[in-house]
């Protein structure tokens, strides 16, 4: 762990390395970029209004007018799918960002301060890890009530633990290094040492973990929406589209198949990218591949 480069600029290079060495990561990158673009330009890309109901066109199969068919309210599936991209990416991104900030802060504090504080924080991590992710998210979302903000909070809480761990281990190694001692001798306080001397050395680790956990966050969001704890209707989310489509599964396959593919592609893109990044920053696999 202490082999991580000591220069703050190291955070940019693993991405490039990963892309150079792993061809599959390109697939992930291109997929993810297209998905982000679709989310950003949803109003221009979507052929119809995602909330526009039209009873005359209920449960129509894919056609030239409605490329992916219509749902039981006559809404265009493709347009709902496109708008759903926004919810998935937003929830995934913000939840991981929150988990990342809280988790790595706690991890650095635990590693740097040590002793009682460390034991307390790691105890908290053990408790978080003792709950199955989906059930913890389900419980928190159910207690707080279904809304976008609560969904993000629920998913963020389930993902704090891994970030605490990934930040704590290198902190313990780093705090004994000379450049941290030097900072201490110069009279810098612990806050500055943690922020300026320790944090930059693990940014790449934390970001890589972030991309893998964002995949998991999107999966959890879809699962909670499928159970009925997601962003309330009529908003379009992939999980709730599958939930609604599941009721008509016997005669309208397009309602469940297309959102399923959307979830799968998004999660796969993030996993492909995260996997390649992890290989690139892990010194063990790096030397293996060379």
């Amino acid at each position, binding site marked *: 762990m202490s082999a991580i480069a000591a220069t703050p600029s190291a955070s940019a290079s693993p991405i490039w390395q990963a892309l150079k060495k792993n061809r599959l990561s390109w697939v992930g990158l291109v997929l993810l970029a297209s998905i982000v673009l679709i989310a950003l330009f949803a109003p221009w890309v979507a052929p119809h209004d995602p909330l526009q109901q039209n009873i005359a066109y209920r449960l129509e199969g894919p056609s030239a007018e409605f490329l992916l068919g219509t749902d039981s309210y006559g809404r265009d599936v493709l347009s709902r799918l496109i708008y759903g991209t926004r919810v998935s990416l937003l929830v995934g991104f913000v939840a991981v960002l929150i988990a990342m900030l809280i988790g790595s802060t706690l991890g650095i504090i635990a590693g740097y301060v040590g002793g009682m504080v460390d034991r307390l924080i790691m105890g908290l991590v053990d408790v978080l890890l003792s709950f199955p992710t*989906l059930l913890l998210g389900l419980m928190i979302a159910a207690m707080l009530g279904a809304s976008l903000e609560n969904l993000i909070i629920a998913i963020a809480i389930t993902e704090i633990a891994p970030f605490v761990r990934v930040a704590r281990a290198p902190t313990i190694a780093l705090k004994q290094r000379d450049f941290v001692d030097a900072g201490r001798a110069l009279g810098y306080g612990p806050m500055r040492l943690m922020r300026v001397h320790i944090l930059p050395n693990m940014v790449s680790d934390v970001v890589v973990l972030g991309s893998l956990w964002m*995949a998991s966050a999107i999966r959890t969001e*879809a*699962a909670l929406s*499928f159970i009925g704890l997601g962003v309330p209707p009529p908003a379009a989310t992939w999980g709730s589209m599958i939930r609604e489509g*599941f009721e008509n599964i016997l005669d309208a396959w397009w309602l469940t198949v297309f959102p399923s593919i959307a979830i799968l592609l998004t999660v796969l893109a993030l996993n492909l990218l995260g996997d390649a990044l992890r290989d690139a920053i892990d010194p063990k696999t790096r030397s293996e591949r060379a």
Partner: protein
Amino acid sequence: MMQYAIKRLLLAIPTLVAMLTAVFILVRLVPGDPAAVILGDQASAESLNALRVQLGLDQPTHVQYLHFLGYMLSGKFGMSMASGKTVMHEVALVLPWTIQLTLASLFIGVVFGLPLGVWAALRRNSWPDYLGRMLSLTGLSFPAFVSGILMLLVFAIQLRWFPVVSTTVNADWSTQLRNLVLPAFNLGLIMTAYVMRVTRSSMLEVMGEDYVRTAKAKGVRPMRLVLRHGLRNALIPIVTVVGLYFGTLIGNSVLTEIVFNRPGLGKLILGALNARDYTLLQGLMVVFASCVILVNLLTDLVYGLVDPRVKYK
């Protein structure tokens, strides 16, 4: 070994108590009066008060907490508000279904995942390895309900090989087996992807060790080299990582049970959620989390058993 086991057991107790405390706090996150949430807007003041007394909500928080700990540690995990039976009773009713499903999927995962992982490791950076890695990453990207629905569409609705709804409680064993196939493969294939991935990386590490090279130099036959020298040692990390997967497995089986409409713990927790049965929900959370803590404990102990290098500090 005994001493290590006892020490590890004692270490799990603070986690258990902290977990119980977390559940206690979690359930009290409900905004407003839980009694009002449970009974709805139309409830009269008397019935609200009666429910508050019944739930112990009229007591101060620390008394509620002690009562809660008492319930949970007594092993009954509290009462279901909807049915009036203990949580343990509700769990026992559906547990065989969940165990059946979980064991079947574990079996599938090991039977397919181990050989595929070993194969990918031996054919490293060739097309079977790339294909295997791509497939296992795809398997790991599937939310369990998505893969379940797709399987249902293809094998039950289009091809009609299997029933769409697999709830036939009093069926004979062949029907039960037929009902089990799709849900078990849904969970099992995700498990396969996971076992395969872990096996591959663990095998790669072990096959690079000095003792494997020595054995090869001594002329040990390839089959024996891979199985005795390679896989046997590679199994140690596999056991640990598969143990860590248990929490995810629970989540996936909940989703699988919902999709295939199978009785089990997943349907139970969903029912509790829809009926706003907070005491059942709270009890189930404790049951699930206790299982995870127990499995982690067992994984540690098994690790100690299979790896003589583990020093019992």
